[in-house]
């Protein structure tokens, strides 16, 4: 893990998710389960994935999300794609 970039990415990701689903950003933490915390279904997850890809300018293949449950995990996937 790139210790210098992931915390910033996590913060931006939490802000993005909070804004999209109307949650106070302070209520979200990097280790939270994304689906449980946001209360979203699979199509809403796709919507968030599109926003993540557009915001960060990366592609995150769906299959890489398999088993990734937390905001921190998604941030790490994005970090790998940013290079």
């Amino acid at each position: 893990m790139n210790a210098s970039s992931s915390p910033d990415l996590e913060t931006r990701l939490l802000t993005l998710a909070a804004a999209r689903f109307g949650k106070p950003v302070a209520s979200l933490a990097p280790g939270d389960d994304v689906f449980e915390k946001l209360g979203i279904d699979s199509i809403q997850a796709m919507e968030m994935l599109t926003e993540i890809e557009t915001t960060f300018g990366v592609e995150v293949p769906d299959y890489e999300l398999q088993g990734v449950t937390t905001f921190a995990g998604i941030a790490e996937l994005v970090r790998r794609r940013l290079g």
Partner: protein
Amino acid sequence: MTAPFVGETLSYAHVGTTLEVTLHRSVPGASCNEIGEQTLRELEALVAYLAAGAGGARALLFASSVPRGFCAGADLRALYEGMVARRGAGAPPVGEVRAFLDRIHAVFDALDTTPLTTVAALHGVVFGGGFELALTCDVLVADKTARFCFPELRLGLVPGFGGIPRLARDVGNAVVRDLLFTGRSLNAQRAQQIGLVSQLVAPGEAVHVARKVAEQAARFDAATSAAAKAFAKPLPSEWLNREKDTFCALFASPVVEAALHKFVTSTDARPYLP
């Protein structure tokens, strides 16, 4: 605006020189215009209207009024329930599926080859059969929320509504293999980069921009436009027929029933993820 047809799953109306088709299937258990028997019947009515002259329309526009997207594909719940019912009656399931595929291929081929210029206005989910419906159109306009996917291999199947031959024709087989073999979805920006989407627009603007495309296409001589389309967009007939054969051969596998059962009984919030 005149509305020659208002159905349970879709409606169509004349807006200037364009015939606008709006998908609006919203029933319990159907979240985004899933294509089943009723949708097919109403698409068949649309194709009959086109064959009768389309009320003088020069262009055809497809859009969805369902917020979640254009279309999430085939009605898998109905497919599974039909499979179980036929098995309970001692009937082989493939025959009825083949008949359904023959009908939907006839409809999609008619949409693909209609002399009218066809434009898809896309947003949100454009998955499976919904992606395949969009691929019958000449020009795809997508807003930034659109996402494209062929999830069929997760069910032990290949796409069955003609999507593979059409995507290969329009974009290329490397893209087909990427999407088909991984089941991954593409965002609209990437879809534009590979040439699938002609115009990428802000969220909620796809219909507006698609109308402009349709109006522009209608300015040219109708016979010339029809000749240009017949020349530039050949139907990959042989490949389409092989697709139906492949789908039906796979459909007989117990893998499919198990996958469909898992899909319709799942309470997991993530059934669309691989």
